[in-house]
C-alpha cells in the first residue's frame, strides 16, 4: 500500500478511503474541495506535491525507526536460528535455540518469573490503584495535588536507583531488619534478597512500589470523568456503595484498567533494571528475568543465538499480550 502516489483521481480516492478505514477517524481533507478557478490537473499537481512533502516529513522518523528498531529486531530474529558465539561464523541451528529456551531451567525460570511479575507489577497495583483512587475521589479536599505528586514520584525515577534503594532497605543490616529488631521481631530478620524463599516476593514488591502510583493517578482521572449524575441516580434508586462500584465505577474505568494493565505488563516483562541492581537474578535463578539472562548469555556465556531466541520469545509474547489487551479495551 505504500506505493508511489497514484495519478488518476479515482484510484486516489479509493486509496485514501482504504487508509481512512485502516486508521480510523481522520478529519475531512482540506484538499478535497477544489479552490475556485483551479483546473483538475492543477489540483492533482498540488496534491502530489503535498504527498511528496508528507513523505519528506515522514522520512527522518521512518529512517531512525527502521535502522535502529525494526532492522535490529529482524536481525535478532535471524540470529536466533543460528549457533553463534558472537565472534566467528554462525552455524544454522534451526529451532534448537528455541527448544533450549523452553527446556533449560534457567531460561524457563527467566520467562516464568517475568510472567509472574505481572502479579506484582499489574494485578496488585491496579487493585490498590482502584481503592486509593476511590478514597481520594470521595474526599475532594485539600492535599489531593500533593498526594498525587507523591504517589506519582516513583514512576519518574531511574529504576536502577529504585533497585539500589531497595537493595539497601532489604540488606542484612538494613532498615527493614532494624525496624523488625526494634519492634521485637528480630527472629524474622534475614537477607531478604539473598533468601531463596523471600527474594522473588521482595523484588516483586519493588515493582508494586513503582507502578501503584501510576495506576492510582490513572484511575483517579478516570473516576473524575464519570458523570456524577449517574451516582445521584443510583443513590435515588437505593443502590449501595457496592452496587455503585459494580454498575457505575467499574464499567466506567474499563479503559483505564486496560491501559494501566498494558503499561505495567510491558514493564513487568521487561523488568531488567530493578533485578540488575538488586539480585542479578539470584539466589540461584529465583529472580532471573529475560533481560538479565540475555545479558549473561551474550557477555558471559557467548551464546548469542540462544539469547536472541529468548529475546524473540519475550517480544512475541509482549506484542501478543498488548494486542489482546488492546482488543479488550476497544470492545464495549
Amino acid at each position: 500500500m505504500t506505493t508511489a502516489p497514484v495519478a488518476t483521481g479515482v484510484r486516489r480516492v479509493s486509496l485514501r478511503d482504504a487508509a481512512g478505514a485502516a486508521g480510523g477517524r481522520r478529519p475531512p481533507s482540506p484538499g478535497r474541495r477544489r479552490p475556485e478557478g483551479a483546473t483538475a490537473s492543477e489540483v492533482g499537481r498540488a496534491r502530489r506535491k503535498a504527498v511528496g512533502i508528507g513523505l519528506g516529513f515522514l522520512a527522518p522518523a521512518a529512517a531512525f525507526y527502521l535502522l535502529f528498531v525494526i532492522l535490529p529486531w529482524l536481525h535478532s530474529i535471524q540470529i536466533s536460528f543460528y549457533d553463534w558465539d558472537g565472534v566467528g561464523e554462525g552455524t544454522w541451528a534451526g529451532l534448537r535455540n528455541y527448544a533450549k529456551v523452553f527446556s533449560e531451567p534457567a531460561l524457563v525460570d527467566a520467562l516464568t518469573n517475568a510472567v509472574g511479575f505481572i502479579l506484582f507489577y499489574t494485578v496488585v497495583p491496579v487493585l490498590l490503584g482502584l481503592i486509593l483512587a476511590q478514597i481520594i475521589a470521595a474526599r475532594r479536599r485539600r492535599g489531593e495535588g500533593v498526594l498525587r505528586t507523591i504517589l506519582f514520584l516513583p514512576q519518574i525515577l531511574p529504576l536502577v536507583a529504585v533497585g539500589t534503594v531497595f537493595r539497601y532497605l532489604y540488606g542484612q543490616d538494613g532498615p527493614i531488619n532494624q525496624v523488625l529488631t526494634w519492634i521485637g521481631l528480630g527472629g524474622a530478620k534475614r537477607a531478604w534478597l539473598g533468601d531463596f524463599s523471600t527474594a522473588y516476593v521482595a523484588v516483586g514488591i519493588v515493582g508494586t512500589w513503582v507502578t501503584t502510583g501510576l495506576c492510582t493517578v490513572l484511575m483517579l482521572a478516570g473516576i473524575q470523568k464519570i458523570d456524577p449524575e449517574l451516582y445521584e441516580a443510583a443513590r435515588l434508586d437505593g443502590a449501595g456503595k457496592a452496587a455503585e462500584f459494580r454498575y457505575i465505577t467499574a464499567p466506567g474505568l474499563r479503559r483505564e484498567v486496560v491501559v494501566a494493565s498494558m503499561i505495567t505488563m510491558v514493564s513487568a516483562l521487561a523488568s531488567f533494571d530493578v533485578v540488575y541492581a538488586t539480585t542479578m537474578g539470584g539466589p540461584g535463578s529465583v529472580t532471573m528475568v529475560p533481560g538479565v539472562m540475555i545479558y549473561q548469555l551474550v557477555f558471559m556465556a557467548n551464546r548469542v543465538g540462544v539469547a536472541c531466541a529468548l529475546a524473540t520469545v519475550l517480544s512475541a509474547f509482549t506484542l501478543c499480550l498488548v494486542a489482546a489487551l488492546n482488543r479488550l479495551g476497544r470492545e464495549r
Partner: protein
Amino acid sequence: MSGGGGGRAPRAGVGLRRRRRRAGRDVFGTLILAVAAVTVLVPFAAVFLAAIQPTDTLVPTLSWPKEPHWENFAEAWTSARFGALMRSSAVIALGVVPIAGLCATLAGYALAVLKLPASGLLFALFVAGLALPYEAIVIPLYFDLKPFGILNTYWAVILPLVGAFMPFGIAWMRAHFQSIPVSISEAAQIDGAGPLATFFRVMLPTARPALTTLGLLYFLWAWNQFLLALILIRDPARRTAPTGLGTFVQQYGQNVPLLCAGTLLIITPVVLLFLFFQRHFISGLLQGAVK
C-alpha cells in the same frame, strides 16, 4: 461521593449516625492515604539518613548522625565520579530530545494532516513499536554498531533511542495535530500559504505545549535509560548515571553512605524536573497512554 446527601433531611438520629459513620470512614480513608504516601517517601528518608553518615559506617542506622557528613555528596560527585556520569547522561538526553522531538513532530504532522497513502497502516507499524522490549533490539545493535565505530560513543545510545522514541512521539504529536480544526489550515491555504508555510507558520506554533511535554518525557526516558546504555557504552569513561550506579552497586556495594549519596545525586535532576513540570509529566504519561 460521600460529599452528597446534604440536601436530604432525614430524621435527626439517623442523620447523626450516618454522619458519624461517614466521619469514621473519613478517618479510615485518611489513614490509608497517609500510609500510601509514607510508603513512597520512607525509602528516600532512609537513603538520605544513610547518605550523611560517616563513610566508614558499615551499618548505617535510621537516625540523624551526630555530625551530618554533607561532604559525602561532594565525594560521590568527584571521587566516585557521579559528576562525570551525570554529564554523560546529560549529553545523551540533550542529544536525544531535539532530534527525536523534530522527527516525531514532522512525522506526526504528516500522518495527521498531510494526505499520505496508507497512513493508517504506517501509523500502526509505528505504534507496534510501543510494545517492543529493548531486549529485542539491544543484542543486534551491539554487534551491528561495532563496525561503524560508534559503539562506546554517546551516539551508540542517542541514535537507537531516537528510533525507539518514535512510536510514542509520533502518536503524541499526531493526536495533537488531529485536534487542531481543519479550518485553520484551510484558512492558511486560502490565504495562499503553501503546505510548508502552513506547517511552519500556522500549525507548528500550536504545538508548543504538546512539544514541551514530549521534550520533558524524552529527557526523562533518555536520562533513565539503562539496558541500552549498559550494553552499548562499555567504556567506563563514558558511562551514564544509571549504568554508573548499576556498576558501582555491584563493585562497591559495601560503601553504603557513598552509594546512597550517589543515588540521591542522580535522581535529583529528574525529581526537580518532575516537581517543576509535574502537570506535563502526569498528563503526558496518562493521556499518552490513553490515546
